[in-house]
């Protein structure tokens, strides 16, 4: 037992280190990629191709003064970054990167991940509240509203996968995809999961709570130095987790046609390649779309994604229960998606514009005024 615990501690430390390295790579990729999108070079001075830039950033953050205004609620202020970070790390206990490369393969894996990913919201609200800053309080509320709203479609989309695989064990879910990946069987679920996942991360176009031009950084306004960097770390680990989950749930994880699925090195390489591709899509979206307004954001969540997620569950249930062929579900999914896109574009086009009546003062034509 003691040996087991020691092994688990060692594995957790390895996980923490590996994720820190991943975060450094993500920061570099994001800056370089956004730079190229905007026709800039991105970081290029520190190290070859600017590779050491994130390391320099990390050192800078550590050596920065940790400002603390005398108005804050100290205990909550110090604890909030940890409340955001710890659940994000705990999720990774059960995310497999290859068939046998996982700390513990929980039977309730999917359920556990969903349960723990909600916990971070508490930290964000607490951070906003404790900062004693108007923008931070507003940002904290916004974070609560947004993350809570998009949690529902995320959960329901994941439920669709659990139904297809008849399991909540992530290794099992991937093994079930050895013939057809779920992205083909259930494209609707993939779209819901990805959009809701982006919103959960609070990344553009859903960065309502840290919106710089509205609430100047939201819950993080009052944070600096090491405490701010913990939020930053949590955000990037979360990004990686959502990308990894997208790959595991919908793109067959470490499976690739023609490659063996049980050699750890090959599996890991395939998994990382797929995950980084999804990450690039996330960064691409960040470089492309403007931020949604908060009412648009909530409408999209509750009026579009939640009903769609219900439809997805019903279709998946019927497909499994009546034993339809898989292509029926794919076709239905695509049809529903097409209908949604059509309906949305129509709704956006016919949105009533505010009527503006222009009155020009013209004293000569004012009949009845002079009398």
């Amino acid at each position, binding site marked *: 037992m003691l040996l*087991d615990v020691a092994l*688990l*501690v060692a594995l*957790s*430390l390895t*996980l*923490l280190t590996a994720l820190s390295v991943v975060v450094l790579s993500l920061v570099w990729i994001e800056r370089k990629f956004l730079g190229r999108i905007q026709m800039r070079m991105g970081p290029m001075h520190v190290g070859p191709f600017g590779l050491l830039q994130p390391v320099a950033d990390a050192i800078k953050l*550590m*050596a*920065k*003064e940790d*400002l603390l*205004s*005398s*108005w804050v609620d100290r205990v909550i202020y110090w604890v909030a*970054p*940890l409340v955001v*970070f*710890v659940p994000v*790390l*705990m999720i*990774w*206990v059960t995310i497999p990167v290859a068939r046998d490369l996982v*700390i*513990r393969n929980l039977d309730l894996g999917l*359920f*556990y991940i*969903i349960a723990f990913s909600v916990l971070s919201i508490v930290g964000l609200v607490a951070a906003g*509240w404790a900062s*004693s*800053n*108007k923008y931070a*309080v507003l940002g904290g*509320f916004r974070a609560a*509203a947004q993350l*809570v*709203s998009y*949690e529902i479609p995320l*959960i*329901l989309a994941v*439920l669709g996968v*659990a139904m297809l695989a*008849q399991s*909540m064990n992530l290794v099992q879910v991937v093994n079930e995809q050895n013939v057809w990946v779920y992205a083909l069987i259930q494209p609707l679920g993939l779209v819901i999961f990805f959009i809701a996942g982006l919103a959960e991360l609070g990344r553009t176009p859903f960065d309502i709570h840290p919106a710089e031009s509205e609430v*100047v950084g939201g819950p993080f*306004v*009052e944070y600096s130095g*090491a405490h701010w960097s*913990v939020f930053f770390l949590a955000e990037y680990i979360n990004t990686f987790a959502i990308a990894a989950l997208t790959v595991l749930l919908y793109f067959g994880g470490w499976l690739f046609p023609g490659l063996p699925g049980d050699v750890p090195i090959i599996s890991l390489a395939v998994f990382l390649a797929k995950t980084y591709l999804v990450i690039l899509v996330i960064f691409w979206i960040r470089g492309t779309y403007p931020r949604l307004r*908060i009412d648009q*954001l*909530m*409408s999209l969540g*509750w*009026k579009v994604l*939640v*009903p769609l997620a*219900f439809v997805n569950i019903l279709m998946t*249930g019927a497909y499994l*229960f009546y034993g339809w062929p898989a292509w029926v579900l794919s076709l239905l999914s695509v049809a529903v998606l097409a209908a949604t896109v059509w309906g949305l574009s129509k709704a956006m086009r016919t949105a009533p514009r505010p009527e503006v009546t222009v009155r020009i003062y013209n004293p000569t034509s004012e009949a009845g005024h002079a009398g």
Partner: protein
Amino acid sequence: MAPEGFTLNYTAVVIAGIVGFVGMAIMFAASFILSPKKRTPLKDMPYECGIPPAPYSWSQLHMRYYIFAILFLIFDVEAVFLFPWAVVFLTSIDAVFYEMLLFIAILFFGIIYSWKKGVLQWK
């Protein structure tokens, strides 16, 4: 009777939590040693884009946040019921499937009702 590896599985979860907590605490300590500490009255003030901050910023929250929190609770609890169902409904009797359809229909009616009531409108 707990399934095999149950204790170890959730020990791993707790240990990961502790490692995360301690790791970040070490980082805070390192930063505490490395960083300069120079307090000035201006640094003591919350940042409000340059204007002098108002003395009390813990404002009351708008009602709409509360409504969305309630909606979230309803659907989150629903998910707790749906997940166990999702992995057993194919191996159980047919009634299990139809019962859950009824449950989902009621919830779906709930969201349509709140939509019609204008609760989902952010204003």
